[in-house]
């Protein structure tokens, strides 16, 4: 059975939404993701375009300004909810891990 779209977020999806808590354009999103993850995660322009398009269609972000070829976006309430749900999911994962492995082994 196909998984519902955005039920879980991939790393690029997560960081793109995280970057869009403040209004910014596509080029800035790529830079912010790199800075947020210290270069661990990078989002290519092709991937970014498709994800922004999908997020917009799903109502998770909205276009705020178009200046020439430059477009700016901002996360919507629905996008925040999705981001929050993903955070709780990741948190649950780490809590489960801790419960299984134990604090001592983690250190």
């Amino acid at each position, binding site marked *: 059975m196909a998984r519902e779209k955005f039920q879980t977020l*991939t790393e*690029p999806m997560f960081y793109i939404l995280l970057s869009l808590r403040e209004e910014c354009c*596509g*080029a800035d999103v*790529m830079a912010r993701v*790199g800075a947020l993850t210290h270069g661990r995660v*990078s*989002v*290519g*322009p*092709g*991937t*970014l*375009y*498709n*994800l922004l*398009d999908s997020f917009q269609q799903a109502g998770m972000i909205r276009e705020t300004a*178009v200046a020439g*070829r*430059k*477009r700016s976006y901002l996360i919507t309430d629905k996008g925040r909810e999705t981001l929050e749900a993903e955070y709780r999911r990741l948190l649950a994962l780490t809590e489960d891990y801790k419960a299984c492995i134990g604090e001592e082994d983690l250190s």
Partner: protein
Amino acid sequence: MKRAAYRAETLSPFDLQGTEEHLSAMAAQGWRLESIGRFFWKYRPAEPAAVHYAVTAPPAAGEDGDLGDRLYFEELCAAAGWEKVTDWAALQIYANGAENPVPLETDEPLRLETIHQSMRRTYLRDRRNQLLCYGGLLLLTLGQVFRFPRAHFLSALGLALPLFCLLSLLGEAYAIAGYFRWLRRSRRRVEEGGVPAPVSRHYRVLSRLSGILMVLLFLAQLGTLVPLSRPSGWTALVAVLSAVCVVVFWLLDGALKRRGASREIRAAAGLLLVVLCLLPAGFEGFRPFEFLDEAGAPPSYVWNGENWDLEPQPLPLTVEELTGEDWPHVRRRTVSQGRTPFASETSYSEAASREDGTYAYLSCAVLDAPNAWVCRRILEDMLKPSQFFLFRPEEPGPWGAEEVYRRFYRSGEPCSEWIVFWPGRIVTLYAEELELTPERQAVAGAGLAPEEEPS
């Protein structure tokens, strides 16, 4: 200073990895891709360098989408250091000269699905349409072969067309199957965290072979346009006209593309030019080209207002042999009507005149078809009744033949035309102003019968 290089590449549009690696290798050798035309990829010379290339499916533009989306996509790519090189059907190729650039696509499953959507809109749609087109053409041409076996078994073009359609049909089916096999393998690979699968080596080889085959078939088809009986002037004429058509096709397509003409208009223009390219076949009886025929005419003299041969060529049956009388003025012609591995036909004609002005005309078309089934189908085709004529069987004994038929008007009046059948040979004999008595039929049969195979 090196000039631009043009190469006929056989890369499939979904051969992402192969294309990117090939272009990087070309850049390392000092050749940067500049544009992709209908037939050739154009490379410009540059300093050898390590350049990364990426094939991607941009958002639809023009008739199918918003141009603003396409421009925004290009802006995003430029911001990441990826400069657009050229469009490739619905895809785009980007280049990046940085040492370790952020890949243009960082989500392989997403990239694969985007490419697949693009292929569905373009590559697969075109392949499917061509598959249906070739399938229809194959049925049509095969139907024609069975409806008019004589014309088709004598024409290399007539026989080549069904073969061409069949090979093209198989080629399209193979291309579609190859694409879905690649898609299945790629989906499995990206699910496992890898990149889309490379296109298999034998698929590339077969693509190259099919391209060569298409060129050979096209040349073969052009060759068949030259009438067998015509001198070399016709060959040159057909070659020049075909070359002109190809150049015009190229220029026209480029001009239409620059003006943003739709695919349908460009395809229609291309089809029109293909028809023009095939037109020389219809020029055979066209008056302005008669001088080409005259170039091959034998030396002659004028008598009684007509040209007659100075050195008459030998024929399998002459008026003189048939009548046993002297005919001092003769004009003879031999014309090959067609030749294929299944059948060949040569027609011989002779106009003869005596000094007193008595005139006779004799023509015979000798058709040889060694295969009994083919020979029988051709005979049946030739005996088909028409609106005004029909054939009736006659006694073959005097001819020494197996079967003989004479042509009659539907009113019942006989014509001066016979079809004489021996196994492997069919002769159509037409005698004007010459009564074919049983004795003369025996002479004709003896002259036209196939040679006995040595036992």
